[in-house]
C-alpha cells in the first residue's frame, strides 16, 4: 500500500502543476473579456493592494531599521560603516524588498483570495454564476489576478521607500552616521536599471505567481469547510516556496 502510494503522490503533484498551468492559460484567455469587469479589478486592487499598505509599511520600516542596525555594526568592524546605506539599499532593491513583500502579500492577500473563492465554490456561488452565463474565471479570478500584478510592484516600492527611511533613522539619527555620507554613498552605488527596476520586474512576477496560486487553490478547493482550510494553508506554503525558488532563478537571469 505504502509502496503504491508514493508514486501516486508524485503523480498528484505533477497533475497539480499541470492543472495550475492550464488554469493560468484559461485565465489569460479570459483577460480580454474581463475588461468589462474593470470596476471589479479596481475594487480588488483596493482590497489586495491598498488594504495591505499598513502591514507592508510597518514591516518595511522595521526591516530597514534592523538592516541598518546590523550592517552598521558589522561594517564598522571593518571600518566601512559609511557603506551602510549602500548595502541596505542594494540588499533591499535587489532581494529583500520583492521577496519579503511577496511573502507578506501571500499571507495577507493570498489567503483571503483563496478563502473567498473557496467559499464561493463551497457554497455553489461559482456554479450559480455559470447558470447566469457569467464566467467566474472572467468575473472572479481574472480581476484578482490582474490586481495582484498591479499591486505587488507598487507595494514593493512603498516597502523599499519605508525601509530606506527606517535605515536612515537608525544609521543617521540614532547611530550618528553622517547624513551626507549615507546618501552620497548610496547614490554613487545604486543604479536605476540593474537595481531598482530589476526589483520591480521581480515584483511583477511574484505578484502574478502569488495570485495565480491563491486563485487556483481557491477555485479547485474541495467544497467543504475542511477543504477551504486546507486550500488556504496550501496557498501560503506553495506561494512561499515558489517565490523563493523563482527569486533564485530570476536573479540568475537578471544579473
Amino acid at each position, binding site marked *: 500500500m505504502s509502496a503504491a502510494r508514493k508514486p501516486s503522490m508524485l503523480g498528484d503533484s505533477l497533475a497539480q502543476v499541470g492543472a495550475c498551468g492550464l488554469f493560468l492559460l484559461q485565465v489569460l484567455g479570459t483577460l480580454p473579456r474581463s475588461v468589462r469587469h474593470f*470596476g471589479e479589478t*479596481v*475594487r480588488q*486592487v*483596493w482590497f489586495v*493592494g*491598498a488594504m495591505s*499598505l499598513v502591514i507592508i509599511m510597518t514591516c518595511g520600516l522595521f526591516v530597514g531599521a534592523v538592516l541598518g542596525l546590523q550592517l552598521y555594526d558589522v561594517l564598522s568592524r571593518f*571600518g*566601512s560603516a*559609511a*557603506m551602510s546605506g549602500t548595502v541596505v*539599499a542594494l540588499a533591499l*532593491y535587489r532581494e529583500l524588498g520583492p521577496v519579503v513583500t511577496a511573502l507578506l502579500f501571500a499571507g495577507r492577500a493570498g489567503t483571503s483570495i483563496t478563502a473567498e473563492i473557496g467559499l464561493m465554490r463551497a457554497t455553489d456561488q461559482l456554479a450559480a454564476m455559470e447558470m447566469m452565463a457569467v464566467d467566474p474565471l472572467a468575473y472572479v479570478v481574472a480581476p484578482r489576478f490582474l490586481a495582484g500584478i*498591479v*499591486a505587488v*510592484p*507598487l*507595494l514593493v*516600492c*512603498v516597502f*523599499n*521607500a519605508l525601509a*530606506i527611511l527606517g535605515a536612515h533613522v537608525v544609521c543617521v539619527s540614532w547611530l550618528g552616521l553622517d547624513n551626507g555620507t549615507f*546618501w*552620497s554613498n*548610496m*547614490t*554613487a*552605488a*545604486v*543604479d*536605476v536599471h540593474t*537595481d*531598482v*527596476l530589476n526589483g*520591480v520586474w521581480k515584483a511583477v512576477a511574484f505578484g502574478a505567481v502569488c495570485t495565480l496560486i491563491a486563485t487556483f487553490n481557491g477555485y479547485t478547493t474541495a467544497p467543504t469547510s475542511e477543504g477551504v482550510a486546507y486550500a488556504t494553508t496550501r496557498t501560503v506554503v506553495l506561494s512561499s516556496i515558489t517565490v523563493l525558488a523563482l527569486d533564485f532563478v530570476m536573479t540568475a537571469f537578471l544579473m
Partner: protein
Amino acid sequence: MTQQRRSYQIGTGLFILLGFAALAYLATQTTSVANFSQGESYALKARFTNIGQLKLRAPVKLAGVRIGSVESITLDPAKLDAIVRISVDKQYAEIPDDSAAAIFTSGLLGDQYVGIQPGGSPDMMKDGDEFVLTQSSMQLEDLIGKFLVSGSPQKPANGQDAPADDKSGSAQPPKP
C-alpha cells in the same frame, strides 16, 4: 452602492499614486540619477597614464566636496594614455589653472574618484581646459610588489631601494 464603488476607486487611485510616488522617489533620490548635475556645467580634460578602476559618473571632488562627475573616458591612440573628460558644476568656476588632478580611492578598497588639488595661480580654468599636472591611480599590486621588494628580510642594498622610490614619484606632483 455607487457611492461605495466611488470611494473604492478614489482609494485605489490614491494607492496607485502612492506606489508610483515611491518608485519615483527610489529612482531619483537614491540612485545615480540623483548625481546628474541639474544646473549648468563646464567640461575639463585630464590625461592619466593609468586610470585604474575609474568609472563613468564617478565623482570629482575638491577638498572632499563633490563638484562634478566623470563624463567620458577615452584612449588617446597617439599618446596611448587615457583622456578623462569631467564636467564641473558652473557654481564651482573658481579652479586655478595650475591645479592638479589625481585619481584616489575612497577608503582602502572603495570606489575611485578624481580629486582636484587646487593650485595658486590667479587665472581660473575655462571650459575645455586640460589639467597640466595629473597623478594616475595607485595600483594596489604595484604597491604590494614594492612593499615585498623593499620590506624583504635580507635588507636590500640602497641602490635597490632608490629606483623603486623614484618610480612612484616620477613627474608627478606630491600629495598634499
